[in-house]
């Protein structure tokens, strides 16, 4: 252990908790940030709910969350942070890939309606005419479709379901939540569980963080008249066409994503994960460190590090310029002392 640098002892510690989807990115940010700064940063991947709860109760200095705060939480957060309110910015954007394991098929295109029908178990065979229609020239087998979903409540599910509801409202009558609403599919824990299940099964299709798709076949998703394969740029593009949610304070950049976009070159199934902090900390050093850390996270450099480590999609410069002022607002009322 002697090889480790001072660690906990050197400088300040700031603690975070929240979405486990951000864990890999947080690790990259932490490492990158601490190369040039002193101190310690911890991040407990207890889940978005836990992260938000601990943030609003004052247990942690910052939080990561796959969903933005709801109204009740906004109030709690404002109460915790006091005067200046809280900072809520998207920092982690990750495309959600549809992964399949169908014998003899290594590329497949699906329209949103078809995807909804598949996951709603209305289409049950891979050689269904509806699938065949968008996959001319692909030799689709006569196997049963096994849809794989997340067993645990997750931001990935919530974002995917949101997409289905927006892009194929007719075929997807279910309510949006982090819980998978359809019974009878294959359920697996965590991203790795879904990937595992898709890999081990046959005729399987699932949704997972694109970074974990590995060598599984990914679905090209129908957007407007074209089919888009996931890519970081295509994913990040969604944020640029989306609306910012209103009435949540000036430093809150929560987005209602335009899932039904027809915009060419956007990949609409994305997970957007936020980081949360207060604008005001009693401890000036801490405030400075949080601010620096947030700055690093959204910086081009930070986004690149996350992309390299966690496979996320870097946010666009345009978005960065929009959210930068919120991060700049972090400070301390005790800064004089």
């Amino acid at each position, binding site marked *: 252990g002697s090889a480790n640098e001072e660690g906990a002892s050197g400088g300040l510690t700031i603690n975070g908790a929240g979405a486990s989807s951000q*864990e890999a990115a947080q690790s990259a940010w932490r490492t990158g940030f601490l190369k040039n700064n002193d101190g310690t940063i911890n991040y407990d*991947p*207890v889940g978005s709910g836990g992260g938000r709860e601990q943030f609003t109760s004052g247990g942690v200095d910052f939080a990561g969350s796959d969903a933005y705060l709801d109204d009740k939480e906004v109030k709690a957060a404002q109460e915790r942070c006091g005067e200046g309110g809280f900072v809520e910015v998207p920092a982690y954007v990750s495309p959600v890939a549809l992964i399949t394991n169908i014998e003899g098929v290594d590329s497949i295109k699906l329209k949103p309606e078809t995807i909804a029908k598949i996951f709603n178990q209305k289409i049950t065979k891979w050689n269904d005419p509806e699938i065949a229609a968008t996959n001319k020239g692909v030799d689709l087998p006569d196997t049963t479709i096994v849809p794989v979903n997340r067993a645990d409540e997750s931001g990935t599910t919530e974002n995917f379901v949101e997409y289905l509801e927006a892009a194929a409202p007719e075929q997807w009558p279910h309510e949006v939540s982090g819980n998978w609403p359809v019974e009878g599919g294959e359920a697996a824990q965590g991203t*790795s569980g879904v990937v595992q299940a898709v890999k081990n099964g046959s005729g399987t299709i699932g949704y997972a963080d694109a970074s974990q798709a590995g060598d599984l076949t990914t679905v090209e998703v129908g957007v407007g008249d074209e089919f888009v394969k996931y890519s970081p740029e295509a994913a990040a593009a969604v944020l640029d066409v989306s609306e910012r949610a209103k009435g949540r304070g000036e430093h809150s950049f929560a987005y209602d994503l335009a899932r039904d976009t027809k915009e060419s070159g956007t990949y609409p199934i994305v997970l957007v994960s936020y980081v949360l902090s207060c604008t005001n900390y009693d401890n000036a050093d801490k405030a400075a460190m949080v601010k620096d850390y947030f700055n690093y996270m959204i910086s081009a450099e930070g986004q690149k590090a996350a992309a390299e480590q*966690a496979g996320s999609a870097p946010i666009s410069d345009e978005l960065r310029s929009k959210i930068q002022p919120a991060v700049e607002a972090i400070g301390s009322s005790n800064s004089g002392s």
Partner: protein
Amino acid sequence: MSTSTTTPEQDPELHTPLGGVPLTAGQLPRGAAPGMLVASAVAGLLLWLLAGWAIVPCALLAAAAYVVIVYTWSRAVEGPRKATDRLVTAIVSGAFLLALLPLISVLFTVVSKGLERFDAEFFTYSMVGVTGEGGGIYHAMMGTLIITGLAALISVPIGMLTAIYLVEYGRGKLAKAITFFVDVMTGIPSIVAGLFAYALFVMIFGPGVRMGIAGAVALSVLMIPTVVRSTEEMLKLVPNELREASYALGVPRWRTIVKVVLPTALAGIATGVTLAIARVIGETAPLLVTAGLTDGDNFDPFDGRMTTLSVYSYYEYVSPGLFAEASFDRAWGAALVLIIIVMVLNLIARIISKLFAPKTR
């Protein structure tokens, strides 16, 4: 003689031997059973290799064939009792082999995947500043030892004393209640234990508290019932005769317990304690909410986050990022280390119990 009233009455029937089978009659030929075993195994192998059946049905079939043939043959030649004995022998040995399958499979999986990262860096570095490849588990290893050690320090005395209370002192309502609720405690899901410990520490230290000792408390909630139960069972097996022998020497009860009862039951208790440790050392959820997760070394259980091997391994596995291979290697390596730690503990427990165990058998 004045004892005529109690003289047993004449009883011709009882007083003639039943006459049994001749000593050598009704024996399967020597080597019959092993021979049959080999024959069924070979038949199974043939089915597998030549007929191309799957290995599992082949093995099952071979085992079933062996059992049936030996049983019927023995029943015909040696009679039902001997046949049953052979049947049970086959079943018991078969059960043992069956249990070895998952064990071998699990160990093979862990060792083959875990050995990948058994290098010096792995054992001497923490995860500070590590992205992608490299990195080590030193911090998590120490965290595991500290937190589990503390948990054992809390639960072993409490658990053993409670078991002693239940077996040696406990009468009446209190004892009943304790026995009963200890059982109930075995069913607490680990995450609930973690949340409970967290809530407890929040009451004392305020929200967001993360410290090693909170993790140890959470683990204790899970560990105590195992310690109590296994110790209790072992104490109950100590013959009353020994307690009486000690009391008769004017030895007070507590000394009798400490010096006679406990040493007699020690081997079993040691096994129970290691089981309890093994039960909790692999917990993740309760530790994440109480002790948290950190990249660096922190060996102070009363301040700040501590990583344990299981939590480390779990999160290396579930959120590997793009360098999944490196992450998975670390996850499996940590798991292997975890198993080795428990093995060593087990070994120590065995040595302890050997040193103090009854020298009878």
